[in-house]
């Protein structure tokens, strides 16, 4: 079976080639594929009729529980015959129907139809439920593509999306059900799931599984309250409607329910739910069918009613119900597809689908009229058509089942409506006189006539010569559904029975409906409240509400005010931390006794004061200075606590920030009135304060933890021995954690690149006019520049043993250039560099990376530093110096990129 599917898939992919070459006759040629498949399946008949099951299996993804397992039993065999047989007729018909369409659209349509056929076959053959979902979802997607095939029309697009929403939603329910089954049983085999149904029901997931399966089936088979997508789906080209939306795809829900019937029956409410839903569906659909104006929508509603009958039959117990279900499935597929073909032919010929506007077509479309009559007779359940036999089965099943009479009454009523609809759709377009003249655009052609006639005749032939089909398809299918063989007697005449009487009642009421159709129709249409039955409205409204919700949500969450976003984020952080603390419930540890030293306390308080002043400042310059004050206070704190390296770095950074931001502050208004309303400010203060409070508590605990720092001790011991440096911090930076530093250096390098790109002047700037600076500053700038530059080199060089290093060195050198540019303008400072800052960055990054490479020749990891100690008073040399030099160059280049760029930009 896998081979068949693969071959069909390949054939589907080849269709575009064929259809482009062949043109109008493509439908006939492509139809070879489904018919060949039909032949192949018929060859399995000898297996199926003995009640055997043919299984195949391959491994696909065993750890997902996904296997390529297929299973052909009587039930799937019946489906396969319908899918391939009707599929072949649909392709033939499409060839005739799409004559007006351009060649590539026709080939696309045929490809989709064949793909759909493969998906359908896969769904009914798959044994593994994940595999079935795969094909099931494929039918939904292909249905979406076919409904929206006429993609220029907004109505088709809307209908396609609606159908996808409903059926894909059902698909999700099926996925949920499958996942739950896998969870309970540990397998995704459908046969296993059905066999071990009691186990499923006994678990916690029993009711959800059954409910999800029902939802999946109801959506696919257009049952109340999900039925509304099907009439809209009639936007699809008619061959697609015939195939997908009446003969095959919509029956997948029935397939699923029938397969899981034993599980559903195991719950107290399963059968009742099915029957109630089916009855509501039938009534609603019957009512709407009477109100329908167009040929196709009348057929669509009658299809929904028929699907309701099928669900009802699944819900009823007893062998007769299974027989009736299979019989009706077959009969309905035959006559409804034929009727859709007829509707399509009428639409194709006249360009109009409204029943009222049609009439007298029997003269121009004689064969179509014949096919329509035959199929309608079957639909109306007139002997000796198959429809009559299936209706007898239906009533028999209802009488035999343990149910009350209410469903029977509903069934009688609905069948009467079907008779009425069958009468109207045959008489009105073909036999009654038209109200106005009907213009004919296309006549009949072989492709348009043969498929409906064949199907309609099949309905007659089967009922008169039922032996083969009963033996091969119906009886095995019933046995597969019911679970054990059942005697099936397909015959037109069973003598006078209660069923015959009921049939007579149905036909009588139906005839009355046909006669009084017009007034009935008008009255029903006039009553707008019935519209409320249309759940479509409700759905539309809920979709619109969802969209409104979405828009409202977006407007609320994405209000465009950064301040609000950040407030949310900070509040989120605080909430998370508080939650975590509450959850951990650990006691708070406090740091040990640690006397307050006055000088340090004063410095710290200056830092706090600076921060608070910055937060309060209305003037940006003042705020910047206050921030700088805090920075310096922290720098001094570092110095007082044994961190000279940090201290110098912090000092230099603060100085450079001041220089750089001054360039920015020169161009913007310094006076910055508050931008927040009072209430907002208070809220923000609360958020900021709560964050600070939480962090305070947490820091206390951190400081109170017993502090064993194994790594830090190791650094202290090994720094000189292995890293050849006295300054442990520097050794860590260039050697132990040199890779961090390399990453950080890349950050600076990339920042420089960004700065160069953002600050690059698109137009040549005017030569920067020398600003007036105090002459002493001007005069002192040169010496100061050289002094700072020299200092930076010294800091760089001695960094390995004394406080200093590449970072600080680079920053100090940048400070030197800053002095020069402040005093004598950017131009002069840039000239003093004698190279572009970005080039310096590139060279520096290259140096830093290169310093780690030589050791790799010896097989050591990247960044293993090499040392050369000449001895004799000469300084030791190592690749770390190269590394630090690289860092120096990158930092210098990057800062200068921004310095020059910002100052140039400010001067514009």
């Amino acid at each position, binding site marked *: 079976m896998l081979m068949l599917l693969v071959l069909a898939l390949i054939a589907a992919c080849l269709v575009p080639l064929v259809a482009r070459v062949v043109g109008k006759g493509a439908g006939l040629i492509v139809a070879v594929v489904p018919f060949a498949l039909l032949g192949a399946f018929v060859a399995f008949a000898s297996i199926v009729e003995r009640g055997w099951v043919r299984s195949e299996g391959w491994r696909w993804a065993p750890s997902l529980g996904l296997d390529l397992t297929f299973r052909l039993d009587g039930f799937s065999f019946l489906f396969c015959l319908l899918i391939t047989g009707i599929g072949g007729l649909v392709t033939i018909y499409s060839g005739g129907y799409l004559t007006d369409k351009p060649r590539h659209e026709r080939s696309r349509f045929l490809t989709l139809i064949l793909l759909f056929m493969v998906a359908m076959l896969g769904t009914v053959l798959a044994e593994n439920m994940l595999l079935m979902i795969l094909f099931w979802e494929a039918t939904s997607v292909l249905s979406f593509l076919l409904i929206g095939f006429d993609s220029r029309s907004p109505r088709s697009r809307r209908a396609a999306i609606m159908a996808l929403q409903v059926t894909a939603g059902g698909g999700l329910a099926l996925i949920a059900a499958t996942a739950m089954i896998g969870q309970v049983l540990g397998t995704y085999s459908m046969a296993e799931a059905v066999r071990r149904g009691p186990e499923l029901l006994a678990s916690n997931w029993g009711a959800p599984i059954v409910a999800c399966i029902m939802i999946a089936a109801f959506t696919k088979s257009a049952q109340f309250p999900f039925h509304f997508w099907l009439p809209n789906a009639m936007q699809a080209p008619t061959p697609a409607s015939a195939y997908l939306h009446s003969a095959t795809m919509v029956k997948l829900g029935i397939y699923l329910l029938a397969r899981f019937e034993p599980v559903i029956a195991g719950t107290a409410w399963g059968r009742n739910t099915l029957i109630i839903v089916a009855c509501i569906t039938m009534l609603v659909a019957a009512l709407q069918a009477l109100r329908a104006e167009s040929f196709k929508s009348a057929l669509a509603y009658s299809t929904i009613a028929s699907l309701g009958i099928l669900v009802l039959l699944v819900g009823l117990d007893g062998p007769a119900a299974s027989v009736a279900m299979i019989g009706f499935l077959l009969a309905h597929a035959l006559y409804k597809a034929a009727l859709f073909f007829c509707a399509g032919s009428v639409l194709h010929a006249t360009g109009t689908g409204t029943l009222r506007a049609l009439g007298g077509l029997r003269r121009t479309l004689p064969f179509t009229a014949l096919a329509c009559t035959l199929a309608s007779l079957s639909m109306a359940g007139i002997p000796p058509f198959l429809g009559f036999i299936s209706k007898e089965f239906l009533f028999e099943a209802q009488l035999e089942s343990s149910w009350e009479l209410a469903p029977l009454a509903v069934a009688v009523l609905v069948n009467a409506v079907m008779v009425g609809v069958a009468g109207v759709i045959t008489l009105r377009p073909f036999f009654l006189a038209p109200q106005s003249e009907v213009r004919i655009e296309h006549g009949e052609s072989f492709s348009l006539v043969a498929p409906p006639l064949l199907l309609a005749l099949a309905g007659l032939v089967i009922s008169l010569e039922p032996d083969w089909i009963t033996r091969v398809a119906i009886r095995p299918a019933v046995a597969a559904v019911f679970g054990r063989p059942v005697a099936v007697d397909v015959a037109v005449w069973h003598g006078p029975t209660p069923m015959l009487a009921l049939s007579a009642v149905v036909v009588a009421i139906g005839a009355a409906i046909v006669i009084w159709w017009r007034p009935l129709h008008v009255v029903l249409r006039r009553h707008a409240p019935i519209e409320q039955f249309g759940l479509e409205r409700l759905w539309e409204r809920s979709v619109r509400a969802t969209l409104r919700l979405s828009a409202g949500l977006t407007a609320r969450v994405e209000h465009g*005010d950064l301040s609000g976003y950040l407030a949310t984020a900070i509040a989120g952080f605080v909430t998370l931390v508080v939650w975590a603390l509450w959850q951990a419930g650990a006691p708070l540890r406090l740091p040990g006794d640690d006397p307050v030293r006055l000088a340090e306390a004063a410095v710290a308080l200056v830092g*706090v004061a600076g921060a608070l002043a910055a937060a309060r400042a209305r003037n940006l310059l003042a705020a910047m200075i206050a921030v700088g004050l*805090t920075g310096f206070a922290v720098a001094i704190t570092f110095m007082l606590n044994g961190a000279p390296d940090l201290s110098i770095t912090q000092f230099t950074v603060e100085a450079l920030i001041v220089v750089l931001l001054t360039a920015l502050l020169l161009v913007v208004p310094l006076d910055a009135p508050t931008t927040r309303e009072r209430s907002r400010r208070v809220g*923000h203060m609360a958020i900021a304060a709560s964050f*600070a409070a939480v962090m305070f508590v947490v820091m206390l605990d951190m400081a109170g933890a017993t502090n064993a720092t194994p790594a830090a001790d190791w650094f202290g011991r090994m*720094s000189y021995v292995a890293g050849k440096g006295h300054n442990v*911090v520097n050794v860590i930076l260039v050697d132990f954690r040199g890779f961090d530093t390399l990453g950080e250096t890349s950050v600076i390098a990339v*920042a420089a690149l*960004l*700065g160069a790109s953002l600050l690059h002047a698109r137009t040549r700037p005017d030569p920067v006019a020398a600003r007036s600076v105090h002459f002493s500053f001007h005069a002192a700038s040169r010496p100061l520049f050289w002094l700072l530059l020299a200092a930076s080199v010294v800091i760089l060089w001695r960094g390995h043993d004394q406080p200093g290093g590449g970072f600080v060195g680079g920053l100090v050198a940048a400070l030197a250039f800053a002095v020069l540019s402040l005093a004598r303008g950017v131009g002069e400072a840039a000239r003093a560099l004698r190279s572009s800052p970005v080039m310096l960055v590139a060279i520096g990054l290259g140096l830093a990376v290169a310093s780690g490479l030589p050791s790799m020749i010896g097989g050591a990891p990247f960044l293993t530093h090499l040392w050369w100690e000449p001895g004799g008073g000469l300084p030791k040399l190592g690749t770390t110096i190269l590394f630090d030099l690289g860092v120096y160059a990158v930092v210098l280049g990057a800062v200068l990129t921004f310095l020059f760029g910002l100052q140039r930009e400010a001067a514009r």
Partner: protein
Amino acid sequence: MTILYALTAAAIMGAALYMILSRNMIRILLGLALLSTGVNLMIFLAGDFSSRQPPLIREGQQVLDEAADPLAQALILTAIVIGFALTVVLATIVMRGWRATGSLDVRRPDAPEQPDDPELRGPDAD
């Protein structure tokens, strides 16, 4: 002393956050710079805080005596420089924003919508 420093770090962070929540871009920029200062102080507290000696191995010795935590210092050094780089990058972006809109209000340079221009279609069009 540790408690005092913890208080200092927390206060700096709180003030920084308050500035970040402003709608003035420069305040946000300064706030972020301040925030990184506060966090650096926090990392400093995370290190071994018992000694106030700088982690320098004395001349002639092989191993470090009792000294401040060198690893925390190395981390802070990295963090300071990264914070500096980001502050400067942000300053550049603010400068561009000011040049583009003439406003320092964060609500002004609006990211979401922009007009479609069918004429601009080549590379670099958008």
